[in-house]
């Protein structure tokens, strides 16, 4: 049974810890800031500004949650703080829900800046927010799978960064290479990138691809979690 009291305590801990962890704070803000600077620099041009918003918002909702979630979990494992939480009766699922909801909340909060940078209006704001929610959720599950399988931060980063780069940069590379695009069309980040760049691409097919990706990543997370649990 899940206890809200414990989930709240870990969420609170993560807020406090993140406010003092510059590396994680920077990751939450880096893509919105870069997109803002580049969009402002090109503000006198009529075309091309949306390109930066599309690219950097995809990176923000894909790369950031993978790397941050894996880093938080692996740091707790490395420093034995997770063991203390588990020993006080915290259920591993309560821990993962707290960390996951924290990363999701912060990614959506900082990602909301793109609404203003891209000057989104009307129903597209909702589409963007749902996209960022789904994209971040899948990425958080990937980050959890990596964190659960890593013994320390260095080990987690060695996997999380390449995986994050692969999924986050694929839509950008696919824009210049049709062969890569034909492959990346089956990846959730590509579909989400398309939806937030052009809402008319939202179709049953794109939703189906995202759902299949979610199912695969969930299975991967469950496999990693059952194999290593959190506290070996």
């Amino acid at each position, binding site marked *: 049974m899940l206890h809200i009291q414990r989930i709240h305590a870990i969420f609170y801990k993560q807020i406090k*810890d993140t406010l*003092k962890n510059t590396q994680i704070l920077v990751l939450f803000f880096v893509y919105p800031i870069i997109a803002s600077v580049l969009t402002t620099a090109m503000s006198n041009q009529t075309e091309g500004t949306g390109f930066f918003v599309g690219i950097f918002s995809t990176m923000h909702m894909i790369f950031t949650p993978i790397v941050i979630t894996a880093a938080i979990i692996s740091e707790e494992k490395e420093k034995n703080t997770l063991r203390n939480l588990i020993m006080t009766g915290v259920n591993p699922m309560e821990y993962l829900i707290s960390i996951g909801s924290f990363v999701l909340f912060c990614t959506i909060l900082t990602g909301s800046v793109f609404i203003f940078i891209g000057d989104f209006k009307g129903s597209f704001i909702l589409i963007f927010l749902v996209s960022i929610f789904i994209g971040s959720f899948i990425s958080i599950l990937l980050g959890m799978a990596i964190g659960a399988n890593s013994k320390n931060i260095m080990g987690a980063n060695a996997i999380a960064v390449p995986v994050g780069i692969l999924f986050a940069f694929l839509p950008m590379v696919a824009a210049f290479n049709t062969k890569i695009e034909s492959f990346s069309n089956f990846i959730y980040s590509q579909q989400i990138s398309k939806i937030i760049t052009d809402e008319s691409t939202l179709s049953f097919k794109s939703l189906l691809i995202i759902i299949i990706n979610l199912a695969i990543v969930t299975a991967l997370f469950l496999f990693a979690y059952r194999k290593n649990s959190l506290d070996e």
Partner: protein
Amino acid sequence: MAIIEVNHVEKSFLNHEVLKDISFRVEEGEIFGLLGPSGAGKTTLIKILIGQLHADRGTTCIFGAEYKSKNNNKNESKNNSKNEKAIQNVNSKIGVVLDNCGLYERLSCWDNLIIFAKIHGNSHKEILEVLSRVGLTEAAGTPAGKLSKGMKQRLILARSLMHKPKLLFLDEPTSGLDPGTAAQIHQLLYELREKGTTIFLTTHNMDEATKLCNNVALLNEGIIVEYGVMLRKSQKYFNAAMWKLYIPQNLT
């Protein structure tokens, strides 16, 4: 009433037998010392007792909940759900201070404790009381990473006391600390015993064991070589070679 019962526990790592047929009991309200040189198997035994490691053979029983060995677990996994609940219940009654108990180093002492206070449902007043008991009131706002080793040890002890445990496990609680800090921790352990907390501690310091423990088990190379009342054990070993040293008062 026995709080801890250890029966024929054995543990090996890579064919190296670390614990060999270990059996003992710890009664309610006592300070029990597990003595032995480094590498004797003290930390392994404490980790088995708190459920961080599984024994290869034998059973350990804490507050009536049985921690079975690896082999038993495989054979009786279906019947273990009741016992799992009992073990979860045990976790709420024990406090643990191990050398690998990490702190949130970026957070202050206060924040380190408030996380666990929120989990256990303690008030701010109780956090202040615990900080005061371990002598860290003035360091409440200091990040844990900037504390000295002794202060970190006291903070870990404070954290383990947050939920007022009935049984406290301490793995070499004063190892590497200066005599003053060690004495403070000893005083705190006395006070806890007076309030009815059972304490299980490991140490390689005979003097510490003599001061604190009611009963001891002497562990050497994975075997309990002595077990019983501390006073009798110390007399057995030290009666034969008792020296008195007189120091002149005017010695500078």
